């Protein structure tokens, strides 16, 4: 059901009309925000906290073949829920209107080694403002993966399918270090003293995360030290794999458009909207997976309305899709396997020095 017919170019008048329609859709949801949304996020928080508690307690029973994998899985799911449906969405300001200090975008700190402060900059600002603009959106391949022929090839890219496996397993560290743009320091373009200052808050946060999962809870378990430590490692790894996979399905599948800076200079609001539509891809999946993806299964809706409570995305998706198609824009939506598969096809394809046009699986 993917609609990978190339989008047509829209005239300024059409872009303006598109923006007006999407604004009206957003306003209708904003006017309806209330009790239902508050109940949703609080229910998810309650589920997440108790799942984490169950996982942590379960790991105290040691390497019991029945409880250990279940407990590690529970903790992993709790971490996924916290990062995706709670952390990511709260930090976007989706629940700021509630005026609840527990759900404030500026003060929420999530359960991951990266700091919320860095995330607000690299993700909320750089990625969401400059989505898919080559050279401005740091999320385009995260500076290590070549996902378009427009990126300059270097011999290291031959290894990108390999090091992406590593990157997926350690994804939270990528998130933590992304804002540092380490290459600049390695190449000596920026002083090391600056790097040290920037590393301080990251070190503090990462230190706490490591202490919690690999010292505090294992020591608390006494003889179950190793079971807890490895369980926590597995839970963190599961979360890393999952978040990596969902996020890479958002902007890298075949058909997703990548923009140049020139195309987006002084762009209108309508152009920004059109860029979000064409630069994002959805995952077609069931309710549970939508929740576990923090509703990034609806990446298109999320990129159009990043500060709308995410559980609303599935509800407005039919309208967004209808608007997209009516304006001759693609609405890229497919199963997880196909989207993720096409991302990996790109990894292999662009590992070679060919600067060919994008893959088109159609």
């Amino acid at each position, binding site marked *: 059901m993917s609609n990978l017919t190339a989008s047509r170019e829209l005239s300024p008048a059409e872009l303006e009309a598109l923006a007006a329609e999407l604004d009206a859709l957003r306003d209708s949801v904003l006017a309806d925000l209330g009790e239902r949304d508050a109940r949703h996020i609080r229910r998810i928080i309650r589920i997440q906290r108790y799942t984490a508690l169950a996982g942590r307690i379960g790991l105290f029973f040691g390497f019991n073949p029945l409880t250990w994998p279940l407990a590690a899985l529970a903790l992993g799911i709790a971490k996924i829920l916290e990062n995706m449906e709670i952390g990511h969405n709260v930090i*976007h300001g989706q629940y700021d209107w*509630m005026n609840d*200090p*527990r759900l404030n975008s500026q003060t929420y700190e999530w359960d991951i080694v990266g700091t919320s402060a860095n995330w607000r*900059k690299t993700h909320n600002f750089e990625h969401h*403002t400059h989505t898919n603009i080559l050279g401005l959106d740091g999320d385009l391949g995260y500076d290590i993966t070549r996902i378009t022929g427009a990126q300059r090839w270097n011999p290291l890219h031959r290894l990108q399918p390999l090091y992406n496996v590593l990157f997926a397993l350690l994804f939270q560290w990528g998130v933590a270090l992304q804002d540092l743009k380490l290459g600049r320091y390695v190449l000596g373009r920026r002083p090391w003293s600056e790097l040290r200052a920037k590393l301080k808050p990251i070190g503090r946060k990462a230190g706490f995360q490591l202490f919690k999962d690999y010292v505090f809870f294992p020591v608390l378990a006494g003889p179950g030290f190793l079971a807890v430590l490895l369980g926590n490692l597995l839970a963190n790894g599961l979360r890393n794999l999952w978040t990596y996979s969902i996020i890479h399905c958002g902007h890298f599948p075949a058909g997703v458009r990548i923009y140049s800076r020139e195309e987006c200079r002084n762009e209108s609001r309508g152009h920004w909207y059109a860029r979000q539509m064409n630069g994002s891809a959805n995952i077609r999946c069931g309710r549970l997976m939508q929740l576990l993806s923090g509703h990034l299964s609806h990446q298109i809706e999320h990129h159009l309305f990043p500060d709308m409570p995410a559980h609303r995305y599935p509800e407005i998706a039919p309208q967004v899709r209808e608007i997209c198609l009516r304006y001759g824009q693609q609405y890229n939506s497919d199963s997880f396997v196909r989207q993720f598969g096409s991302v990996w096809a790109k990894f292999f394809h662009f590992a070679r020095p060919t600067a060919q046009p994008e893959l088109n699986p159609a």
Partner: protein
Amino acid sequence: MTVVASPAHTAATATPWTQRLLRHPWLDGPALSFFLEELNPMWSLVESQARVRAIHRETHDTLSIELVPGWGWPGFIAGQHVGVAVEINGISHRRRYSISSGPQARRRDTFTITVKREPGGKVSNWLHDQLRPGDRLRVAPPDGDFILPQPAPRDLLMLAAGSGITPLMAQLRALLASEHAGSIVLLHYLRSAEDRIFAGELESLQARHPNLQVLWCLESSRDQSAERFSPAQIAVRVPDYAQRHTLLCGPAGFMAAIRQHWDERQLNARLQFEYFGQVPALHPPTRHTDAHHPVELAGRRRHLQVGAQQPLLVALEAGGESPPYGCRQGICQSCKCRKRSGQVRNLITGQVSREPDEDIQLCISAAESALVLDY
């Protein structure tokens, strides 16, 4: 009485231990607070809670609510106000109300706020209609500098209008409980006799304390006895008012007349007052036109003027400020800041934020009134 906390007030109160625990670098404070709240909501580390011990009806439109605070509640000084948050349809609405009880209340661990029902007021109507004894309210610690100097001046004059009596009642209770020896005159200006908040208690205090004199000035009596504040009226009622240390609280118009008169007689040093909202300048330097609104930056004690059609971010930068920002188009939330008071319009959605203590995005908000911002 509802008050809007002026940022200049933020007295250096010590951080409550609950907040220190919540932010402790080696603890997952939010998780700890979640499970504490599951056990007992009064144990929240995030927001102080208070249980409603009793609700007393003061007049046809005014209630006193006696509250027992939970963990992390600091003491207060008579004249201060507290924050109250009420959740309506998923949104927490925050207001500040003056404490009307004295710090030496019967039980040290309770305090009372007195709330007048405001026509159309979200929070005051909710408190009047929905709140029952035994319920819990979310509360924020006391604040405010409407506090008597220490030692208290000997002879005092208290001028209140309507529900403006609330902080004065706390001060009166504190003074009388500490056996204040000097004379105290309280003038309470009211629309009619039914509006006499604390009437019974004031009468009994007056009977027990010969140094207290309470005078009710009814503004809308049908007969000749109707009286409003005027220099002549005060001179008749309290001939020695110029010699007294004066405490003033009431609606803006009432306070303006009194501040004007005290200013003319050069008695400003003996006048202490508390506003319901922003403190208007007695002598505005220039009349600001409709196209501009004054903005006060909390914490930095800066005041500047901003254009009504301009995004606040642009206007603040033009004024030499450098607030944090990112996308400048309402996407990234980097410029989100707390609006303490005033009204702004969202330039993209057209939504208007009227309530105190709401978060706004500077890059897409324009001022519609005088503002107090905190970033």
